[in-house]
Every structure is written in C-alpha cells, then in structure tokens.
C-alpha cells in the first residue's frame, strides 16, 4: 500500500513510505501500546497496520502492512502521529475543537472524550461561528498572542447527535466502517486566529462555571494535550512548559463542567456570554 497520505493542518509535512523502519528506536522508552519514544522521535507499531515514525516535527515515515486498514492508517496519522509532530514543534496539540467568530475571535473547546465538545462546536457553527479544527487543535504563540491553527472542515458527530440536530445522515461520510459516527461538513476558516478563550469541559457530571487562574491554566493545557505521556520521553518537556506558560498568560481559560447533562443550546449560550 503506497497511497499518498497527508497530515491535516501540517501542510509542510510529507508522509513518506520507508520499508526499512526499525523494530525499535535505539535507547527508546516504551510509553504505550506499541509506542516508544526517543528524543524528538516517536515510533508506533500496530500489528496488522504497520509502523509509523514521527521525527523532528516535520518528518513522517510509514511502513504499512499489505492488509493495513486505510481507516486505521488515517486515524493514526491524524491522531497520535500528528500530536507527536506538534509536540516536537514545541506547540500544543490540545484535545478539542476550535472555532472563530465573525469578528475574528477564536475559542477552543477542550476536555476529555465524550464531554460534549463537538456537539457544542456544531451548535456554535449553526450560530455563525466557523470551524478551525476538530479533534486536535494545534496551538502556538505569535508574539504575546495564543493562536489556533486551522486543520479540519468537518465536525465528527455521533448518530444520536446528528438526529438531535436534524441532520440527514444518509448524505454524510461515516468516520469509520461499523461506527455510527459521521463527518459533518460545516463552514470553516482556513486562517490562524488569535484565541480569546479556552473552555475546559471538565470530566465531572457536576455543573460548574469557574474561571481558571494562574498555574491552573498551564496545568490544564498540559493535562488536555493529546497524549501528554509523549512529551517527556520525546524530550519536549521544557519547550512544552514554556509554550503552556505563554498560552496561559495570553488567553482566558474557563472550566465549564457538566455539559453533557445540559441542553446544547444553553451550553452555547454560556460560551458566547463568556466570549463577550
């Protein structure tokens, strides 16, 4: 399988096929299932799919097995490999969705899986917001401003969310065979945007609305990074901390807990009020 692959939002990265990827990285630390890291390098090996190596923030090499499922290849490239590249660049791959208002203000909705981020993001697009990213948001700093980088034009929604929004599923692309998860096209922006607010959807069912202050902000950015366990073994901890501190200083952050138990319209109202 030698199809061309790309990494969304990282247009300078060329994914090359390399039939000679090593079984292990010299001196690497095993940090997860089939995942090992060395300085500024990550190697992921998934039986039945292949090997994936991300290095120095701009180099991706893959060695796919004959039977590799293209959906899994795409998931690995758009997930852990993309996150590794962003970490290696010293930027933050924040789990969540980013949107930009008509006035050019960007927000990032972050939090653990199932916290309601994508559903709220979709509701905001119905109110005129444009999508910047969904899944992993690349955040960096330009001067003293935190910036969200564009990468996706679709929001992933589960079938039940599509039904609640009255979206006709028949015309949508399934994210994966066998899963009732759909790629819903929305109005998207292709330009980096300054972040005015990062919302943490929390992990509790308990309703809360609390501004995050001081050190809490940088800690939250680290915790909500995609696969924070990659950071230290790739020797990216120092640059990560510096970037998290800069982002924390340059944008507001807010904990909005219990989103799953609220009406999505109410959540969107709250977010829009917070942005004002």
């Amino acid at each position, binding site marked *: 399988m030698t199809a061309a692959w790309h990494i969304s939002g990282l247009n300078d990265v060329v994914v090359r096929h390399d039939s000679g990827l090593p079984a292990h990285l010299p001196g690497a630390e095993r940090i*997860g*299932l089939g995942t090992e890291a060395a300085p500024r390098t990550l190697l992921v090996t998934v039986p039945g799919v292949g090997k994936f190596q991300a290095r120095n923030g701009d180099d991706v090499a893959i060695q796919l097995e004959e039977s590799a499922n293209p959906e*899994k290849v795409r*998931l690995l490239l758009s997930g852990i490999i993309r996150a590794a590249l962003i970490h290696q660049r010293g930027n933050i791959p924040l789990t969540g969705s980013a949107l930009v208002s008509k006035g050019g203000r960007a927000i990032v909705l972050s939090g653990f*899986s*199932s916290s309601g981020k994508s559903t709220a993001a979709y509701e905001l697009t119905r109110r005129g917001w444009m999508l910047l990213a969904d899944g992993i948001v690349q955040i960096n700093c330009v001067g003293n401003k935190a910036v969200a980088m564009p990468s996706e034009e679709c929001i992933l929604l589960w079938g*039940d969310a599509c039904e609640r929004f009255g979206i006709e599923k028949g015309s949508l692309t399934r994210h994966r065979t066998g*899963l009732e998860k759909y790629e819903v096209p929305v109005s998207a922006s292709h330009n980096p945007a300054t972040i005015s607010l990062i919302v943490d959807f929390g992990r509790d*069912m308990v309703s809360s609305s609390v501004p995050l202050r001081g050190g809490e902000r940088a800690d939250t950015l680290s915790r909500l990074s995609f696969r924070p366990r990659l950071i230290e073994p790739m020797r990216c901890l120092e640059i990560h901390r510096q970037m998290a501190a800069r982002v924390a200083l340059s944008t507001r952050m807010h904990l909005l807990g219990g989103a799953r138990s609220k009406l999505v319209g109410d959540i969107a109202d709250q977010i829009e009020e917070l942005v004002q």
Partner: protein
Amino acid sequence: MSAPIVLLASYPKSGNTWTRLVLQALMKGGPVALNELNGDFHGFPRRVLFDDIAPINAADLTPDEIDEWLPDVFAQFANEIDAPIFMKTHDAARRTPSGKWFMPPDNVHGVIHLVRHPFDVAVSYAKHMGKDVDWAIDVMGRENEMVTLGRDRLPPPLHEVIGSWSQNVCSWLSGSPYQVTTVRYEDMHESTFPTFQKIVAAVGFVASDARIAMAIDATRFDKLREEERAVGFRERPRASEAFFRSGKPRSWEGLLSDTQRAGIFESHGKVMERLGYKADGSYLPLSEATFS
C-alpha cells in the same frame, strides 16, 4: 506484590462500591468522603486509561477492537505502577475475540469476587437503572449481555460484557486463571468483621483488627445514605433516586411476585445453589455454603 492489580469483580449491585469504600478507608486510615471514592479504573476512568495508553482513542474503535487492545493496555499500566491498585469490574471473566484473557493473569494478584442473592440483585438493579423489575430479570438472563454500549454513540464508560447473572458468577467461580476469593453480600452484612478480614487477607493487606473495624464503621450504610442525601454521589445514575437504598439482604421482600421469583430460580437455580441461595429467597449460613 509482583502482580499489582487486585480485581473487585461482581455482577452489578452486588456490593462492589461498599467493598471499595471499606478498602479505601482502610488504606486511608479514616473515613473516605463518598465523592472522594476513586473510580478504580472502572467506567469512564477505564476509558481515560485506554485513551492514554492505546495508539487510537476508544471513540474511534469498535468494541471488538477495544477488547483486543484492552489486555495490553492493562499490562502496560501494570508495568508502570509501583503500588498495588484495585480495579473494579462488572465484566464476566472472559477472553477477547482472539483468545486472550481481557485482564492479563500475570498482572492480577487476585480477585475479590462479590456475589449477592439474585432476588436482591434484580430489585436493586431495577431501582439503580430507573426501570421495572421485569426489565432487570430479563437483563440478568441474557447471555453475553453487554452494557453501556450504543452503536450510535460511545458513552463515557467503556463497554463491559457482563453476561447473564449465572454466566457472570460462574465465570469467576471456576475456570478462570485467577486466584479468586468469593464473598457473599449477605455475609458481608451478617458476619461483617470476619468477612472483611477474609477480604483484607486475600488482597494482601496487613491491617490490625482495630483498623478493619474502623473502616467498617466508617462505611456503615446509614452513614453512606445520609452522606448521599446531603451531598449526592457522583456514581448514581441519573435515572436512580438514590445509590444507597436499603442495602440489606432480603430487601426483595414485598417487591418480587411469586412469578418473578420462580422465573429467576428457573433461569439461575443451578448457580444459586452453588452459592447457597435458595428458591424461597433465603440462603445457607456462611458455615454451610461451599461456593463449589
């Protein structure tokens, strides 16, 4: 302890939460606030663990694909921790589609297997889920029952294959590769101290009798009920009025019809007898129950 995971395994509503509270009070040396009870890597915390260690998030995988990676996720996790941990599960002892045990035996120190008379389970499970008892009886009879899974969405907790009540109980009673200590809920109530002594010994704790007594007292049902009433309990499902209800054995009395009791015994009688549970809702005293 070379294998750091202690499994607390049970069919739902069989005393798992109470046992976790006692063990955590024991470790802490004092009462544990209800909402400080950690998730013991069950439900949503298990999903967070999976997403942290696996190369693809659970939300992008099918249940079979998640199951296939779970044993390796647990093994990786076990290799990273330096102190024993409790892990709650409602899964039956089971193998993944490719034949691996879903919890790697090499990483499991032992299993505390909690069982409860199915009459009480039916009543408690129905209340817990905000359904009627016939619903619970039906679910308890379903072979290979899988909970918390929807095709059109991935709920926060990862799915569990709990099987039928009989299937779940039998899977832990015999044939699994683990060191299993089976404990009846009824004995936890009626012979509380010796039963928890047995649990404490099985998990490998060294604790004085006074400390065990303190942990038991700190988690008395009346205290738990009062605390839940005052501050709530985050593990209570939205459909349930209260997590801690009666808590007593034979709480089915007055709530199950003759037909419902007969139906449960018809489906699960053979396994009930192995645990000393009788068709009239009574049970053999601990001294006569063999769990064979």
